[in-house]
């Protein structure tokens, strides 16, 4: 995943990172595994609403689910009382997904996929995200937030 290019992020007048595009929907959950299906349901419907094919919807759901899982397991270290905000926007012929948490800022250099040569359980999330999305990287989070993973997918 490309490292955050903080200097290039657009900011609103308050210095708050501005999210690009026209918002479709925003969902807020606690950092609990059982909330992931709420995210999958709304993300799948939103992608379908934007005109994505069945395969495109499937890939989007995979990537957003994995990103939220990583927030639960890594950013919040399994604590169930954190918040996760998933903001979905239309940017022309692409859909942008911002996964925002309120945990401590993450060392983005450590967020990388492992080689798939080695057969072992785990370590697939980042790989799934890069395969399923057209772009994904950490960007400046809004004020008060800890991290923002920005992912985009071309509607097809």
């Amino acid at each position, binding site marked *: 995943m490309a490292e955050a290019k903080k200097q290039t992020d657009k900011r609103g007048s308050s210095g708050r990172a501005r999210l690009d595009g026209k918002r479709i929907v925003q969902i807020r959950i606690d950092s609990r*595994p*059982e909330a*992931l*299906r709420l995210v*999958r349901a709304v993300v799948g419907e939103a992608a379908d609403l934007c005109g994505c094919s069945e*395969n495109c919807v*499937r*890939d989007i*759901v*995979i990537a957003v*689910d*994995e990103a939220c*899982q990583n927030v*639960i*397991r890594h950013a919040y270290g399994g604590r169930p009382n954190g918040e996760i905000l998933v903001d979905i926007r239309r940017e022309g012929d692409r859909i942008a997904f911002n996964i925002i948490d309120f945990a401590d800022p993450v060392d983005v250099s450590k967020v990388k996929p492992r080689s*798939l040569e080695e*057969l*072992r*359980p*785990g370590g*697939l*999330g980042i*790989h*799934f995200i890069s*395969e*399923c999305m057209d772009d994904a990287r950490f960007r400046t989070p809004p004020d008060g937030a800890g991290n923002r993973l920005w992912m985009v997918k071309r509607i097809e």
Partner: protein
Amino acid sequence: MVNCEVREQDGIAVVALSGDVDLESSPRVRDVLLDCVGAKRPVLVDMSRVTYIDSSGVASLVEAHQSARKTKTTFALAQVSQSAMRVLELARLDKVFIIHSSLADGLRNAG
């Protein structure tokens, strides 16, 4: 949100998974699969009604696969749903796991 049904058929433990295998439900799937593999019978996982599987679900399958290798037990999948197959392909596991297109095929070959 996942249902794991285990039945014995021709000396094979057939595990039928249905629903979403995700971060919430994969620990249960993992336990059931490792139990079955531990019993040293061949294990065949019917994945036709898996509506979703994530990386944690895939990890459970990998663990069961590795445990079966150690004990020289057969561990195979059958009739993998489209959405589960996409995830196995992403993980490059479609060439690692034994995958049967039908349950009958799996039963014939797993014993």
